[in-house]
């Protein structure tokens, strides 16, 4: 019943699931996670649209490393460790750009866009061994893989394939990727913010349907005030789900109460957009069938790909990662994903929907941040009050609902398996 980590108590017979609050506070646990999780899981690095042209690159932190994600001059995609083989300085220092190669500003060592060492020094500077065996090339992440334009890396050369790792999440990524006839793209403008809380609090929160009506009461009232709310029979019927997607991945799925710029009109979009949005829904149904088309148009999915990629296909589509820099601090990066070639009016509605809810200046995310930081403060009491309860819905017959906690239990079982396996 007590998992290998000693921090997860799973008692199906007693309908109890508890997580030790030490998992959120202990620096030793943070260190173990760096190894057991971030050194072995597939981690999201970026989207194809961010490096559309040959020579495009972005730099970002992934799994505690500094990474260059780029498309070389031949069009091949790479994930390099952003560090000069000479003394270690980062060789790309801009957040993004286009470059035929990289040059370290410290001593001038240069590299082709495919990572090969490009400098030629006068004879006598270096011996033959310096140039041999690629030891002066940029180091690549051990594995790099792509699914539907979502790129992932893995620092473990022996880790199972990306395809097997993603498993059932691929079907959900398909529901996102298929929304654009010409593909999907990351929109410019990338919120990066700090939350003074353990990263797993955001993993839970991102797929938590239980907190919405209370934590986000003012957001829901706002939607009502401006006409961005249309609740139909499907929503009222309570056909919501919390789904374990395997490998620690999980999601909630529920009919949208709000507008979805992909294909669900609400009055706040304006009467002039109604025909266009409804035509788009009809197109999706014609192309993908009634069930799948309706699912893409009308239903929301909040998905967590273990350990830390959130793809929330809700009133807008957010792609979000978050990494611990300490047990009680994480850095969050968010991106808005949109349809390539989208009507400008719908693109604007998509961005407004995003920033109203999902942005750090919106009407909802600030309250999530407050809740997470409040939990972290509460964990100071862990010696006397040591366990979180994640049991909601365990006795329920049939499938779990979106406001149950089955999806968090899926995350924690995988976390326990990986962290507990470290000796």
């Amino acid at each position: 019943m007590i998992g290998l980590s000693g921090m997860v108590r799973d008692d199906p017979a007693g309908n109890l699931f508890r997580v030790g609050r030490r998992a959120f506070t202990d620096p030793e646990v943070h260190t173990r996670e760096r190894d057991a999780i971030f050194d072995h899981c597939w981690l999201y690095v970026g989207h194809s649209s961010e490096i559309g042209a040959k020579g495009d690159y972005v730099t970002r932190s992934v799994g505690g490393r500094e990474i260059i994600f780029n498309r070389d001059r031949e069009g091949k995609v790479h994930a390099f460790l952003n560090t000069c083989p000479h003394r270690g300085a980062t060789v790309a220092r801009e957040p993004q750009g286009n470059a035929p190669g990289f040059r370290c500003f410290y001593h001038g060592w240069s590299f082709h866009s495919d990572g090969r060492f490009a400098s030629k020094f006068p004879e006598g500077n270096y011996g033959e061994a310096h140039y041999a065996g690629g030891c002066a090339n940029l180091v690549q992440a051990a594995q790099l893989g792509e699914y539907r334009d979502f790129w992932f890396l893995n620092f473990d050369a022996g880790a199972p394939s990306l395809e097997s790792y993603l498993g059932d999440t691929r079907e959900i990524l398909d529901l996102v990727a298929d929304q654009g006839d010409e593909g999907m793209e990351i929109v410019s403008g990338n919120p990066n913010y700090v939350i003074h809380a353990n990263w797993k609090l955001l993993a839970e929160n991102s797929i938590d349907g239980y907190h919405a009506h209370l934590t986000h009461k003012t957001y829901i009232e706002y939607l009502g005030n401006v006409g961005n709310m249309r609740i139909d029979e499907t929503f009222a019927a309570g056909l919501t789900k919390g789904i374990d997607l395997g490998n620690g991945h999980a999601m909630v799925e529920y009919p949208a109460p709000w507008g979805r710029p992909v294909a669900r009109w609400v009055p706040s979009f304006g009467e002039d957009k109604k025909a266009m949005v409804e035509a788009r829904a009809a197109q999706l149904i014609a192309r993908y069938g009634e069930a799948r088309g309706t699912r893409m148009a009308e239903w929301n999915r909040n998905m967590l790909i273990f350990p830390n990629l959130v793809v929330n296909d809700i009133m807008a589509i957010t792609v979000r990662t978050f990494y611990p820099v300490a047990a009680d601090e994480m850095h969050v990066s968010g991106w808005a994903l949109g349809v390539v070639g989208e009507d400008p009016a719908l693109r604007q509605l998509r961005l407004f929907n995003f920033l109203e809810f999902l942005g750090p200046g919106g009407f909802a995310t600030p309250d999530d941040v407050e809740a997470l930081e409040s939990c972290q403060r509460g964990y100071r009491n862990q010696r006397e009050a040591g366990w979180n309860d994640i049991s909601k819905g365990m006795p329920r017959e049939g499938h779990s609902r979106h406001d149950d906690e089955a999806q968090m239990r899926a995350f924690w079982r995988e976390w326990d398996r990986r962290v507990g396996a470290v000796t």
Partner: protein
Amino acid sequence: MGSARGGGDVSALRPEIEDFLYAEANLLDEWRLDEWFALFTDDATYEIPTAGMPDGASAAVSLFYVADDHTRLRERVVRLNDADAHAEQPRSLVRRIYGNVRIEGGGDRVIARCTFIAKRAKNRRVDDFFGHIVFDLVRAGSSWRIATKRVYLDMDLLHPGKISIIL
């Protein structure tokens, strides 16, 4: 931005424009949000682009932190006046400084630029916001109204985590 035609000596406007900006800052610091909202024109916008956005960035094509028209700004005030706006309960202590005020235009319309530092204290932690602000102001009788307030955060990482106060 509207036209900023000359119609007088800009330096002569400085005292009243600065007084207006400092009064605006004070209303926010004192959480007098309804009075603050009343400073805006009916077609006003209040925007905070995401970090790194250039001056001409548009919320129609790029993701902003905040892109309020008059309606969304009103709703922002409604929300912050509600005890269920949890991020600001209890309310932060806030104090901001506007400086380096520069004024262009004149007559009935001016562009006022300033730098700012805002400090926010809550839960025994202090958050810093800093950047610059561009105001588009229109004369309204003996005072001024805000047609646009655009706040550029000169921060590549948003250390405070959220922009739950109005900047």
